[in-house]
């Protein structure tokens, strides 16, 4: 059998392993969805009235704010799920099982691909939960079938990017706690972009950061697809960022993983 076939079957095996973990411990998926749901409810019910009026739309108030905030909350799910990925990769790296994999004639990177593909499934599921809750609290997207497909495609790209990045960070971290901490800033990024309030309302330097960080084009692309707001060049920017982060994260993770283990 060729190396390519091995890489494929071994990755599939490792994916099955991750899915088993996920089914055995559904709390992992629920936790990834839990934090964004809490933020959603908090922002919609506690702050939504005021923030919604500030948006200046025709209806204003809470109803308008739900529709505004959902893309940001969905991306927050990508960030919390990436943290979950980092934790499970870090657990793997500190346990002996990875040492065993390293002494076996298997496609090396398959351990990591398994994690990434498993996380992709898990994150999409968490996002579905978050979206479900959003629909219950009044989220009313304009998206048709085609737009929803677009939403899923964009989310898959974003999840890939964030997951490969978190895999690399987790291998670098060398401990479970450090891996978890390293991913925390990722959860703040949607808030420091256009996720919760328009960047126009932010003071100078923060606005500059918000406009140029990757989460803003991510959010604007999603918002455009879901709510029919103008997307402009945000889609191109989002795809560019995703490609860059995925490639960087993948190469970095692979390099770190192939490096000699030290304990």
């Amino acid at each position, binding site marked *: *059998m060729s190396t390519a076939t091995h890489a494929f079957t071994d990755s599939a095996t490792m994916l099955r*392993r991750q899915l088993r973990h996920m089914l*055995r411990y559904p709390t992992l998926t629920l936790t990834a969805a839990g934090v964004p749901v809490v933020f959603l409810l908090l922002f919609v019910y506690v702050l939504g009235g005021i923030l919604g009026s500030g948006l200046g739309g025709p209806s204003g108030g809470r109803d308008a704010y739900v529709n505004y905030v959902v893309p940001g909350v969905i991306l927050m799910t990508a960030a919390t799920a990436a943290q979950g990925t980092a934790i499970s990769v870090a657990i793997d790296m500190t*346990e*002996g*099982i990875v040492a*065993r994999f390293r*002494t*076996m004639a298997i496609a090396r990177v398959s351990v990591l691909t398994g994690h990434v593909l498993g996380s992709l499934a898990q994150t999409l599921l968490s996002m579905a939960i978050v979206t479900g809750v959003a629909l219950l609290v009044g989220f009313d997207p304009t998206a048709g079938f085609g737009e929803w497909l677009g939403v899923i495609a964009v989310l898959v790209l974003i999840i890939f990017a964030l997951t490969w990045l978190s895999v690399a960070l987790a291998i670098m971290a060398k401990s479970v706690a450090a891996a978890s901490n390293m991913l925390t800033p990722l959860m703040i990024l949607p808030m420091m972009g256009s996720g919760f309030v328009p960047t126009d309302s932010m003071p100078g330097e923060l606005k500059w950061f918000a406009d140029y960080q990757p989460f803003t084009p991510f959010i604007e692309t999603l918002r455009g697809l879901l709510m029919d707001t103008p997307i402009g060049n945000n889609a191109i920017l989002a795809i560019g960022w995703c490609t860059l982060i995925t490639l960087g994260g993948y190469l970095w993770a692979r390099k770190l993983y192939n490096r000699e*283990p030290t304990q």
Partner: protein
Amino acid sequence: MTTDLGHPALAATAVRKAYGDHVVLGGIDLDIPTGSVFALLGPNGAGKTTLVQILSTLIRADAGEMRVAGHDVVRDPDAVRAAIGVTGQFSAVDGFLTGEENLLLMADLHHLPRRERRQCATDLLARFDLVDAARKPAVTYSGGMRRRLDLAMTLVGRPRVIFLDEPTTGLDPRSRRTMWEIIRGLVVNEGVTIFLTTQYLDEADQLADRIAVLHQGKLVAQGTAEELKRQVGGGHITLRFTDARGHDYAARTLDVVSRNDEALTLKVSSQGTCGRCAHCWTGSTAPRSPWTNSRSTPPISTTSSSR
């Protein structure tokens, strides 16, 4: 040395490894015939794990030529990996999966055909007395069960050369003997070659065709158990104890040359003493002796000196 068992399963010359200034392995030569058991004996920090990790392609040596199962460790690590099985010092099981799932995972990674993989898992579970625990997550296993699962996982790909890093450390005397039986069975029934490390002289004595003692980065003694005993014959062994009770008990039981109550050491004649000390270590002759029930690990270390 004559090897009429064909080419060696493992051959190494001048293997070196240092961490910074600390030379862990200072030129190790090995020649292990196919179908034999080799035991590497050494105290904590001697470099046993380091040598196993180098030979099993986990880490790179600074220098040295190594061939395992006929393949060059440095140039062709994947060929080596396909031929070996490794049970490391620390448990290498997936705790979130059940025992059975762990074995099936190994079967999949070895690309066993669909039908064989189930059979293989079922056989190994039975052989390692894990049938009742097969459907429970490995995190719930006791240390001994984990160790057995660990070894079972190593056997899935039918490796020709097996590395066992301290396979019985932490096992109770009964599990220990079970493990020995399994290891002997592997050699007799399947003709595999085994490289094991241990801190216990009696374990090496029980299992190994050849024993090497690793001390300060060098193999200071090598040979069969008999040859080793002859080498240290006429010499003395210093036994060091961690508690006074054990020290006192041993002083009354063994042929003591000299005794130091301050440092809790005993100097004994090495002639014929090894076997008896070894028994004390496992507690097989004196199950209630003070040094078997005072601690779970043997509280003595030995250093031998000629003359």
